[in-house]
């Protein structure tokens, strides 16, 4: 087990280097830089700009810049944001916390809803319940996240039941931690529900397919023949085996939820990574874009790793390496 994780971690290194190199190249080839706007500003002297360039290490050749950046990256230092004038790491840390909260909340919710429904639909395959749930799954798969988010926004603009935008309301400074937490969760609810809705559909479909596949195997038939109770067959014999492939999905989902979350965040005004990278792209904030890109890729790799590790823990058949 330990060697397996270690091996996977070692495999990450060339991946990360390649990833950071591509990120760097993408940003390098973008036209105009952050200073282009500053040069237009008559209040900032050319000397100041030169000094800033030297401070940021932008006067050196491209490859040296990359190596310097890579060296700093290993110490979790992604440079300083041009626009915010604070370290990129601080900025990302704050936004990442929000995005992860959103991702975990919606992941948890969608799994809790999708898996039982899939078991129900799989058990009653071919009935009206199954058909209705499948239609719902189609809706959920085909509705793009931004449109669901907009529908929610429309609904809230009409009813005003939930707060929208930001992570907290305006508060008394001495508000209790619980009150702040409750408020945070309230703000989380809109983007969380949107993401959850978008996510449920394909989770449901995958889970149902797995369940049906396992449910039709001979050993389940044997279990029926031995007269085991239905609940034991469904939950112990089928569900456990049907869940195994889902752990790989859990890892993959971290990536897909990052994608979905980005647009949802922007539309619902949730300050997460998605809105951060949009702002950074719009203002040509070089280091911030690179940092966000690398971190998001890193999250995806970690997600896959977690999925693989969970799979080896829960599925003894794969415990080989």
């Amino acid at each position, binding site marked *: 087990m330990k060697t397996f994780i270690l091996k996977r971690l070692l495999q990450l290194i060339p991946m990360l280097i390649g990833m950071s190199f591509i990120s760097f190249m*993408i940003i390098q080839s973008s036209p105009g830089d952050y200073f282009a706007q500053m040069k237009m500003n008559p209040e900032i002297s050319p000397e100041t700009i030169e000094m800033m360039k030297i401070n940021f290490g932008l006067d050196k050749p491209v490859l040296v810049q990359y190596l310097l950046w890579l060296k700093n990256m290993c110490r979790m230092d992604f440079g300083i944001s041009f626009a915010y004038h604070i370290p990129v790491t601080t900025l990302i840390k704050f936004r990442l916390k929000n995005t992860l909260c959103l991702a975990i909340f919606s992941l948890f919710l969608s799994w809790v809803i999708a898996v039982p429904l899939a078991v129900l639909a799989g058990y009653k395959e071919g009935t009206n319940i199954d058909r209705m749930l499948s239609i719902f799954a189609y809706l959920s798969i085909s509705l793009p996240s931004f449109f669901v988010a907009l529908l929610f926004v429309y609904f809230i603009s009409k009813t005003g039941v939930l707060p929208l935008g930001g992570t907290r309301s305006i508060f008394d400074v001495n508000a209790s931690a619980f009150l702040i937490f409750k408020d945070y969760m309230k703000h989380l609810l809109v983007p969380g529900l949107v993401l959850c809705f978008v996510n449920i559909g394909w989770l449901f479909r995958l889970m149902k397919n797995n369940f049906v596949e396992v449910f039709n195997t001979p050993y389940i038939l044997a279990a029926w023949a031995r007269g085991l109770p239905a609940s034991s067959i469904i939950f112990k014999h089928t569900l456990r085996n049907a869940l195994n492939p889902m752990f790989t999905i859990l890892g993959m989902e971290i990536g897909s939820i990052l994608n979905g979350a980005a647009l949802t965040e922007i539309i619902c005004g949730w300050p997460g990574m998605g809105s951060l990278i949009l702002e950074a792209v719009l203002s*040509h904030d070089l280091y911030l874009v690179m940092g966000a890109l690398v971190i998001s890729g890193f999250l995806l790799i970690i997600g896959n790793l977690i999925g693989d590790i969970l799979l080896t823990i829960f599925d003894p058949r794969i415990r080989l390496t």
Partner: protein
Amino acid sequence: MKRFFQRLRNHSKLAYFSFWFLVFFYIVSFFADILAPYHFDYQFRNKPYQPPTKIHFIDESGHFHIRPFVYNMIIDDPVFRTYREDQSTRYPVKFIVNGPERKIFFVFKTSKYLFGVDEPAGIFLFGTDTYGRDIFSRLLYGGRISLSISIVGVLISFTLGMITGGIAGYFGGLIDQILMRFVEILMVFPSFYLMLSLRAMFPLNLSSIQVYFLIVLILSLIGWAGLARIIRGMVLSIKEEDYVLAAKSLGLSHWRILFFHIFPNTFSYTITALTISVPGYIIGEAALSLLGLGIQEPYPSWGNILSSTIGNLKVVGDAPWLLLAGVFIFAVLINFNLLGDALRNVLDPKNW
């Protein structure tokens, strides 16, 4: 081809319907120039956010008219944008009406429109936007952009994916290693972040035609990697088949074997994958335009029409018909998904 349709219909009536629905959508947006009652940037400055025009058959005195008619909508309160119908004059809906001159298919100049009403009334089936432009016309024109981007993008990325995957799988060795590592690294990035960063490589203010091709380029750059990997896997197994060996012993060139003997065997998979991946391109274009990084005003696209609703609670609440662009996107996506699922079963050789 005929047998294919037969099988599709036998497999699933719904998917068969989806297929024709999509064909209908593509044809309608292709002929947007002819069908739309207004040009996409023709503005009614005194009718911002007008709700959809009601089409009447019965006038207020209770008389029935065979020819449907509309009333002119007059703005009652310019702040809250409430409209009322001015029932003094009827404006019958006419076919082949004259209007401002515009170009059809970028070439033919004409001032005839398929249908419309006399000004000052307007026929806005889906209401108007902030400049008083007809949403229905903009949706038709926008469909032409959004749907064509998806088709062109899919074709480019599939060509790229097929060739890269084919070369990697067929030749193997060092080429395979290099290509696949590159593909893996590309796949590491969450596509939305990659899309935004790639967009950042280019200036924000490009001409419309440049932006169009840029979006196609970005979307196909993101899309080809996954396919290349699967094609490589398929080519790896197909190249061990006896008929490939036979082709080799006949002295055929590598390219001939790859293109005429190996690729055709991957088609049943690729056609399904193609159908399933089109929605991704439509969403990608919509997402970019939604954020103001894609198709720019005055040109419409489905994402672009939605973009005015972002971060503006009042607009969404006042003019929900702007969200119809999302309904169009949804309609196309669900039909592609239905069709893709059916194709997967129909084209699967196991089910023949």
